[in-house]
């Protein structure tokens, strides 16, 4: 302030302060005073102007910056992420469990996590696993312990659940009929007082921590055989532990972080979540030399069977020559758990909003998955199509790598499939042998892009047509006389027993005894002989070499084929025209192979093994190979069984193995 001189012209007198001098001057010189006043006003004005400019400048700069970062770059859709589970530090969960004849429900903190009042469904013991730190539902299962063997499954499941988890049990309808001692003991070891005495049509609820406290148990005895126990409602409180305690302390790696995420969400996958010795989730199988299918995308078609998917992906990722980057899992529906499994293995997964119902839904899911696969991998000429209920052979990719050039070069081929419909334990023998067949087996197969894009995709059955995609693909309009290549011993194994067209009985009868290759690095034999013309030469050679069996014997009898090994035998059956499979179906039935529709034929010829001998069946006179029949031999004819049995088998025909 000292150096500020308002008016340099004014020189203060020595003995007066500058103020007085100024005052004096001002009073005396009016003009100067006026000047000063104007000057001051000017100053004020300038200040105001500079001020305004400053404000404007700052504002503009700030605005520009805001705009710079924002304009054009804002997501049009405001992804406001609402936290799904509001953070609350509540340490106690209110749990309500209801058990009755026709309805069960479980509510955790007022949220219903299980409700089942459907008729004729959900019978047995319902089990829910909660995370002891967060209270989230980690697994939901129902074991129909009214039926046999379900209690074993329940024991298996309960053993897999990690210590410390909260278990909730409730019975719907009946859960004790086939609840054996072992299972009862397991329940008792969880702290249940009632379990050992559970009996016919009792109602029961139980909440406890695995390996720890019991939070509550209620039971209502059935007064008589014909009536049910009274409904029971158990209300209890569960004390949550800290997250730290609920987690394992694995070394901090990328893999373990995936594992941790998975294990804190779901239960029932056994040792993958074991704290001490978790099973690996990365497999690093040996790479294949000269792998022709390394860049072929693999589409895994899945529904809501996460345990199946888990098993399937394990076997797939363990197969030699697998390329995890090419794998995409397509999940039919917005199911979380299958997605969790996919993420556990570090694969990519895609969810599909369900369209249509039942078979048509599967069919639409297939279409969307195939189209997406070729979109995601625009360079691919092929795609491998797998389903979630298949085990994949260790040499699956090796098998494809050795045969895929045929699909590229031979126009008469429709697909390569890893599955031999007729390849049962007792009818398949040679892992290096391939066949050409007129039916499309599916269950792990390779699709040519041009076939899909040019032929199948444009006319794929629309959602309102309730068709099976595989049945549709087998129709002559689509197949156009082309054939598939299959191995004698399947490179996939169908383990699914619950599915759209599947049940335990059906699986036991047709899939359980299927042969599955476990030998690595099988060198396929004479792959070139699978080309269209070469194959005919090969068949003629085989038939020329084959010994004609004694046609007077019963072909169903074991003695029909001599007790030799490594020989080639041929038999002739009656087959009036191309579509006459009467005798074949009967033969297939007594040989205990696939008999629900005709599979595995090539121009009226079937190839399989019996007693380690190659066994050829030729349909006469429809097959072009009929000429090989010695004139002395009368083709065998087998009568179809009486009408009603045939009718009973009819619905099962529709139940193809795709599920």
């Amino acid at each position, binding site marked *: 302030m000292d150096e500020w001189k308002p008016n340099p012209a004014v020189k203060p007198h020595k003995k007066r302060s500058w103020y007085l001098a100024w005052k004096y001057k001002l009073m005396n010189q009016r003009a100067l005073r006026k000047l000063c006043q104007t000057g001051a006003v000017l100053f004020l004005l300038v200040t105001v102007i500079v001020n305004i400019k400053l404000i404007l400048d700052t504002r503009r700069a700030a605005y520009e910056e805001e*705009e710079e970062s924002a304009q054009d770059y804002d997501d049009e859709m405001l992804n406001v992420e609402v936290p799904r589970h509001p953070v609350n530090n509540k340490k106690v969960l209110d749990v309500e469990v209801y058990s009755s004849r026709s309805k069960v429900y479980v509510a955790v903190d007022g949220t219903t996590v299980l409700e089942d009042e459907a008729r004729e469904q959900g019978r047995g013991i319902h089990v829910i696993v909660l995370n002891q730190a967060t209270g989230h539902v980690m697994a939901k299962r129902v074991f129909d312990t009214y039926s046999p063997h379900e209690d074993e499954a329940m024991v298996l499941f309960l053993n897999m659940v990690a210590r410390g988890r909260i278990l909730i049990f409730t019975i719907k309808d009946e859960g004790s009929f086939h609840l054996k001692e072992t299972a009862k003991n397991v329940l008792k070891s969880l702290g249940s007082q009632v379990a050992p005495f559970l009996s016919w049509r009792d109602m029961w609820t139980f909440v406890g921590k695995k390996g720890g406290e019991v939070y509550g148990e209620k039971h209502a005895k059935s007064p008589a055989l014909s009536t049910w126990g009274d409904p029971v409602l158990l209300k209890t409180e569960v004390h949550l532990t800290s997250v730290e305690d609920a987690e394992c302390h694995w070394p901090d790696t990328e893999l373990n972080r995936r594992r941790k995420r998975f294990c804190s969400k779901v239960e029932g996958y056994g040792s993958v979540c074991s704290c001490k010795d978790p099973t690996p989730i990365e497999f690093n199988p040996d790479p294949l030399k000269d792998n022709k299918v390394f860049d072929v995308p693999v589409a895994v078609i899945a529904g809501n069977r996460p345990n199946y998917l888990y098993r399937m992906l394990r076997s797939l990722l363990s197969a030699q020559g697998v390329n995890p980057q090419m794998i995409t899992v397509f999940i039919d529906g917005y199911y979380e758990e299958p997605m969790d499994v996919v993420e556990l293995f570090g694969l990519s997964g895609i969810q599909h909003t369900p369209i249509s119902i039942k078979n048509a839904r599967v069919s639409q899911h297939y279409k969307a998955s195939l189209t997406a696969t070729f979109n995601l991998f625009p360079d691919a000429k092929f795609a491998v199509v797998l389903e979630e209920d298949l085990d994949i052979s260790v040499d699956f990719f090796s098998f494809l790598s050795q045969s895929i050039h045929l699909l590229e070069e031979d126009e008469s081929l429709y697909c390569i499939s890893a599955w031999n419909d007729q390849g049962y334990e007792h009818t398949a023998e040679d892992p290096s042998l391939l066949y050409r067949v007129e039916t499309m087996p599916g269950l792990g197969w390779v699709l040519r892009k041009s076939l899909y894009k040019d032929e199948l995709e444009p006319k794929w059955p629309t959602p309102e047509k309730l068709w099976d995609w595989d049945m549709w693909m087998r129709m002559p309009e689509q197949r156009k006389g082309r054939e598939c290549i299959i191995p004698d011993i399947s490179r996939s194994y169908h383990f699914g027993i619950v599915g759209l067209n599947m049940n335990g009985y059906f699986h036991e009868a047709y899939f359980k005894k299927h042969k599955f290759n476990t030998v690595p690095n099988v060198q396929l034999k004479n792959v070139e002989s699978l080309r269209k013309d070469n194959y005919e030469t090969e068949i003629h050679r085989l038939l020329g070499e084959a010994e004609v069996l004694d046609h007077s014997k019963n072909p169903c009898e074991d003695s029909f084929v001599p007790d030799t090994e490594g020989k080639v035998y041929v038999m002739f059956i009656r087959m009036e025209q191309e579509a006459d499979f009467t005798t074949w179906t009967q033969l297939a039935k007594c040989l205990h192979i696939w008999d629900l529709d005709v599979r595995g034929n090539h121009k009226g010829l079937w190839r399989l093994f019996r007693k380690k001998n190659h066994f050829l069946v030729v349909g006469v006179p429809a097959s072009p190979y009929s000429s090989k029949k010695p004139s002395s031999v009368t083709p065998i004819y087998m009568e179809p069984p009486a009408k009603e049995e045939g009718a009973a088998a009819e619905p099962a025909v529709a139940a193809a193995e795709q599920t």
Partner: protein
Amino acid sequence: MQKINRNVVLALLSLTSLVFLLFQLCYYKFYLSQKNGAAFSKVRGSQSGQDSTRWHVVRKFLGLISSHNIPVYLIDPLILGLVDKDIDQIRSSPDGPSPECKYFCAPRDFTTFALLDKTWKHEVGLFRTAEKMGFQWLKIINKDPRLDGMDDLSGMEIPLHYIFKLASHAIHLVVFYERSGNFLWHGPLRLKQHMDRKFVPFRKLHFGRYPGAYEKPDLLLVSIDDLKVQIPKNPSSFLEEMSHSRFLECRYREARAFFQLYPDDASLDAVEFRKKAKSLLHLAALTLNNLGVKFWLSSGTCLGWYRQCNIIPHSKDVDLGIFIRDYKAEIIPAFQKAGLPLKHKFGKVEDSLELSFLGDDVKLDIFFFYEEDDHIWNGGTQAKSGKKFKYLFPKFTLCWTEFVELKVHVPCETLQYVEANYGPEWKVPVKMWDWKSSPANVQDNGVWPVDEWDDVIQIY
């Protein structure tokens, strides 16, 4: 006394205002200097410290990605522009030490690199290493457009852009994806709500305002400013490609809504026609691309793309547009060589040129477009009467899109284009279409002089 007071007040006021003014000036100056000194300012002139920072950041980044075996290539337009000037020298001496930092020290806020999605495995390790090296990073993810066209598939969101920031420089890593038309695509850069809008001045990024489509580039490993880096083999053509790389995604959601209203024709005829039209379009695209003639989807084919993301099965032909300035005399022989005989030729290069070729049952119409000051038009000719027609369009530019597994051009301003041609009712399918009267933008344009008929109306 009163007077003194007034004067005192006045003086005090002036004093305060002056002090205030001084303070404000100081503040203003301080504010400006702060802005200038901040991480991302308009760099005026070059300070050597800043220069070497950029080089160091790039070097560190290249070290980071090579330690994770991730192949990236340089697509920064600024640096590629500089490189292009010396391209021969750089090509001839791939390992020569450079005396001065010429390229990577050039003043700029970003250095842009490209990454092919399929060449890396999305390891999380990269980002941890980056953090250890001092990088701050931002990942921009969004929906996978390759699944967008599908009925209700929802995949995981895919990474489209990464930004690595260190000191005053940032690396923009653009992720490229392969698409069905055998081309590379990069996504737009859109910030979600919770994202830091000030992480970098996004507006100055060279990539990300729009999605883009590129050919798969040939790469060249060069050493510039003592750094080994991959660049497009031909930087100038890359820069040229970049200048009009804008990509439009088909409006899949609207297309789905359209099919809800008007179910798709799934008859065998329709399937067959689509197949033929698709292969005709592929053949035409191949032929024109080989000639280097730029073309776009026009008329019904464009409408099919815009309205239903597919070929309209009852349209019976494939329509393409070409600017008359791109006309080449080789077009006709090239098509004939490709197995598409000329069906008719109307007009002449100076006026209303239109070519028709005959494919397998499907006709290929090529319309030539004439640019005026405020509009663009193409012509039509009625063979029997020699009448001329004119179809007017508002001015448009060209964008890339993907259509029936093909990378093709469409007018960027597609809605105006389609509306000009088909009127506001373009959303409603019309089976009866008269090219002389139905279009909304048709005008009579006189009659060809009879003596020119032999030339301007040729039918084969």
